[in-house]
């Protein structure tokens, strides 16, 4: 009996890894045989980024059961911290090692931001996370746009005004240039690196879910009061899930930054519309369904491109969004999830009495 269950989860996870592997091999074949348009080729790394974002957001939304509307914000801090490091270290170490360290830095910085935001917000009984993460995403994006960092022989110089006020020496170099962002980040990203990172993200998330910690996280999602009286440390496990989710988004950001020659924080890439888009991937793929997130991220990213030839493709996308909305509103899982949120929101109105526990 127990054995059966173990193998069932293991098999499920195996299928997920296998799908990614097959997709990778397929793409390699298409590339090698010259059957892939340059447009599609350019989409490969972004695809990996979206998959990582969707999978990691699902950890917060589906597994932890908290709504986050600022996932792009974590991607943003990951992107800028990773690119900043690579820019500083360009030429100072082998490319592979530099990229690897940049990824770790992006993960760490985004993870720390997750903890810093999570500590005050996740401790509250209510679900204020949605609002705070939304604000966080917007604030980060705007902060980065007025951030100037330069480097010369005297070390680093910071300013929030303009690059002149950095007062750099002769040989000084502006690294982060306000709204112009970071230019000349080494192009370390590749499809293979992206797929590897997807595998690592999946490995972490799937194994986390199917462990002691994962059970604790899901018990909080299913019934906070019962979890608490069963001896589960609510704050600890909420923070754990949320910061791991943020860290993986940070890694996706580093990949993003190293795929572009210029990194700027725009509403398009790091704004709330991006966060919402990732949330749509998660919702459409199934809340709590990791494999579903991968598939829906791929389909919803590819679809507009595949339909580019059709002049009416906008209408089609529109229709798809409608379907997404419908699924969001009507699929049993989503309804359940919304009920959970509703229950939380209503118990959360500050001046209302604590809900009766029966």
């Amino acid at each position, binding site marked *: *009996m*127990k054995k*059966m*269950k173990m193998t069932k989860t293991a098999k499920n996870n195996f299928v997920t890894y296998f799908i990614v592997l097959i997709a990778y091999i397929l793409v390699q074949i298409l590339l090698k045989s010259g059957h892939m348009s340059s447009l599609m080729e350019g989409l490969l790394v972004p695809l990996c980024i979206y998959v990582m974002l969707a999978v990691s957001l699902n950890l917060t939304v589906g597994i932890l059961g908290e709504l986050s509307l600022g996932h792009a914000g974590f991607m943003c801090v990951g992107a800028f911290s990773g690119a900043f490091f690579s820019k500083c270290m360009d030429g100072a170490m082998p490319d592979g090692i530099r990229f690897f360290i940049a990824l770790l830095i992006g993960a760490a910085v985004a993870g720390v931001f997750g903890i810093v935001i999570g500590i005050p917000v996740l401790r509250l009984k209510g679900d204020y996370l949605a609002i705070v993460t939304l604000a966080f995403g917007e604030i980060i994006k705007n902060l980065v746009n007025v951030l100037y960092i330069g480097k010369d022989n005297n070390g680093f110089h910071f300013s929030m005004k303009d690059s002149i006020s950095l007062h750099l020496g002769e040989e000084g170099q502006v690294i982060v240039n306000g709204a112009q962002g970071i230019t000349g980040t080494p192009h370390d990203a590749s499809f293979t690196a992206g797929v590897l990172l997807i595998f690592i993200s999946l*490995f*972490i998330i799937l*194994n*986390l879910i199917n*462990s*002691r*910690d*994962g*059970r*604790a996280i*899901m*018990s909080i*999602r*299913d*019934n906070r*009061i*019962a*979890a*608490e*009286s*069963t*001896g*589960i*440390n*609510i704050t600890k496990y909420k923070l*754990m899930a949320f910061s791991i989710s943020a860290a993986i988004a940070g890694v996706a950001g580093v990949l993003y930054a190293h795929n572009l020659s210029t990194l700027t924080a725009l509403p398009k890439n790091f704004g709330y519309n991006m966060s919402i888009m990732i949330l749509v991937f998660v919702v459409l793929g199934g809340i*709590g369904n990791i494999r579903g997130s991968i598939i829906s991220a791929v389909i919803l990213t590819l679809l507009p491109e595949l339909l580019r030839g059709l002049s009416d493709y906008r209408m089609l996308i529109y229709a798809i969004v409608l379907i997404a909305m419908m699924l969001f509103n009507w699929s049993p899982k989503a309804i359940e999830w919304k009920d959970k949120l509703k229950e939380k929101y209503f118990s959360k109105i500050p001046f209302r*009495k*604590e809900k009766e*526990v*029966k």
Partner: protein
Amino acid sequence: MSLLEVKNLTISFGGLRAVDDFNIDIKRGQLYGLIGPNGAGKTTVFNLLTGVYKPDEGIIKLEDKDITGLKTIDINKAGIARTFQNIRLFKDLTVLDNVKVGLHNHYRYSTIEGIFRLPKYYKVEKAMDERAMELLKVFELDGEADYLASNLPYGKQRKLEIARALATEPRLLLLDEPAAGMNPNETGELMDTIRFVRDKFDMTILLIEHDMKLVSGICEALTVLNFGRILAQGQTSTVLNDPQVITAYLGE
């Protein structure tokens, strides 16, 4: 020796004194009943004992240790586990995993060991599976270990809640209307199970129940609540023959 000693416990919601000057003294190994009409404040007493609500006044002592005002999680760690009147299972987890959440603090491995599937992960998970199955067997739920908790019939969900509570290795078990929604047959079985749990796990049990057959059948002592106040307290047979108690119940 007293396992649970409560003095002068009081809480108000707005103008309502839901629990007013509540006292109780439960001996180790006792099977104790808390009864009273609807809205008398029974569940509120459980919520006070488990730190869901903080009392306005009063002291709660578990094995002579003052646990008043502790957080719910720390009260569980101190040794009180409970079930809920409105069943609160982890409904998207399997029956087995529900119990394994209960084992959480007694079977440990680190996050790293879990993610990287180090040997300790397999060892501890196996031990957890075995222990959880043992507990499920007590409640004849071992056949449904792989079901989602929400797919269990009502009576079994109540049993699963007890199994999960026991998994946390409490000194005191609080059961809030364990027989609610059960038919007389199931209630009979439940009475046997509760006795068995007390004997096998050396447990002290405080239970809320409306089913008088169950109460008179298994409880050794009773406290009767009415409008938040203690109406009668003592040995089951004495309390149930108390004219005041009879009026309170018949008056309902």
